[in-house]
């Protein structure tokens, strides 16, 4: 019982932080500016992009999901709340049209939008290596948020292919939470870093005139520097992040 109450405290803290952020952006009027008519029109297109690209990836048989490119796109150009809304509705519509199993995972999509929007506001979406870091942070958030859903709703092992890793970790004597969390840390970064980089490539390809009409054009400005060099730095950063993730995994599993 003590574990449950401890987790309930974390849950309440997380909700409180979100509410404070929400009230802050409402009071400062930033929210009203973010949800312009263009944003409201962009959201359905972004949801459709999520679903269409998700299906292209299935056609190409690639080992990633890439089902949140539209979410990250909206989060960067229209702020974290528009991103969070896109993610949430995206999952609800995925559940309502393709597979009802998608419903319970909407908080994960909410956080993908929110976190990538916050990172973009902080200026972490302006060149390749910063985008890689953003993707990594989004991956951590989504691994952490999906853990309680997997544990409480599905008893740890979910219906996705990565459950085999969780099952293996459970067999080696890990606790359920540790096993699910480390599976998330193993699987998510590849997917989310690729998502963030594709979203960045798309933003770079948009015309200046189009971006200027969106609520947060300043987030989409690309920092100078030869893009070749940038890309090499990005690859280096990804390798560093992978080493960091391995170190963290060791800590989780060891402790």
């Amino acid at each position: 019982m003590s574990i449950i109450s401890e987790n309930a405290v974390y849950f309440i803290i997380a909700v409180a932080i979100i509410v404070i952020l929400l009230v802050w952006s409402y009071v400062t009027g930033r929210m009203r500016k973010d949800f312009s008519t263009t944003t409201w029109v962009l959201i359905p297109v972004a949801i459709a992009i999520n679903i269409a690209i998700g299906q292209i990836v299935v056609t190409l048989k690639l080992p990633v999901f890439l089902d949140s490119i539209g979410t990250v796109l909206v989060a960067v150009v229209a702020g974290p709340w528009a991103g969070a809304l896109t993610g949430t509705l995206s999952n609800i519509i995925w559940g309502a049209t393709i597979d009802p199993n998608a419903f319970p995972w909407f908080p994960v999509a909410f956080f993908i939008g929110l976190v990538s929007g916050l990172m973009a506001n902080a200026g972490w979406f302006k060149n390749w290596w910063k985008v890689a870091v953003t993707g990594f942070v989004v991956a951590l958030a989504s691994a952490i948020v999906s853990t309680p859903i997997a544990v409480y709703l599905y008893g740890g092992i979910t219906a996705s292919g990565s459950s085999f890793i969780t099952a293996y970790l459970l067999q080696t004597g890990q606790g359920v939470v540790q096993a699910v969390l480390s599976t998330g840390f193993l699987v998510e970064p590849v997917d989310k870093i690729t998502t963030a980089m594709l979203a960045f490539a798309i933003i770079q390809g948009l015309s200046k005139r189009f971006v200027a009409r969106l609520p947060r054009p300043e987030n989409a400005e690309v920092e100078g520097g030869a893009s070749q060099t940038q890309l090499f730095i990005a690859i280096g950063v990804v390798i560093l992040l992978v080493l960091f993730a391995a170190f963290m995994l060791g800590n989780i599993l060891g402790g």
Partner: protein
Amino acid sequence: MQERLSFYKKRESAVHRLNPLSKLTLALGIVFVSFLSPYYWTPHLLILFAVIPLSLLGKVLREYINAMLRLILPTAGFLFIMQALFQPLEGVELFRFGFLHPTQESVLFAFANATRIVVMVSSFTIFLLTTHPNELMTDLTRRGLPGQFAYVIISTLQIIPQMQAKAQTIIAAQRSRGLDTESTFFKRAGSLIPLVGPLVFGSLVEVEERAIAIEARGFTSTRVKTSLNSIPDTNKDKLIRWSLIVIIIVTLASRIWLS
């Protein structure tokens, strides 16, 4: 390619005539009770005495069984097998095969868990089979949901089939000019950009025009808008909603005090 993007089946039935909000409460109520109830057999009984009767009452039993076989049972079956084999619960060992040694406890746990997932997905499926998304959105907007949300949901449902058709066209066009979408991993990964690029840029171009078009129709106006279709909300609907809320609270209370 799907013609219409929704599970909805048009029928004349008692469930179809219910107010959309009542049906939503019903679906969520079933989910909450099956997850919160402290008794082991609740989810199983819910399938027998709530989910199946509802699908009969709504005259969607055949569609429900179809969805069950296609979406629900594969997921639940996979869950059951994985959890029965790999949940490390102590107890009476059933058999030992290599490193696998499922116990009676882990099989029981897996059975309850898989049934709960079946209940959850089933109740959403029946809700979607008997409720048209437009009706739900009209009703929720009348109750105070901002019109923008209704716009997002409804227009997404319209855009997705168009987008899927566009994606198929782009894949066919790129293949015909020799893009490799089937060989080695790196070739397939490399062909992602020429497929995603045209799709995304092509659909973003329309955004600006559409924004101007709906702005001209008073999209951001805060005046109360009238609706062409009226959706009935009878006393029976209100009774159903309130009794469901009471049932959920009672289940939550029994969960807290009995476990």
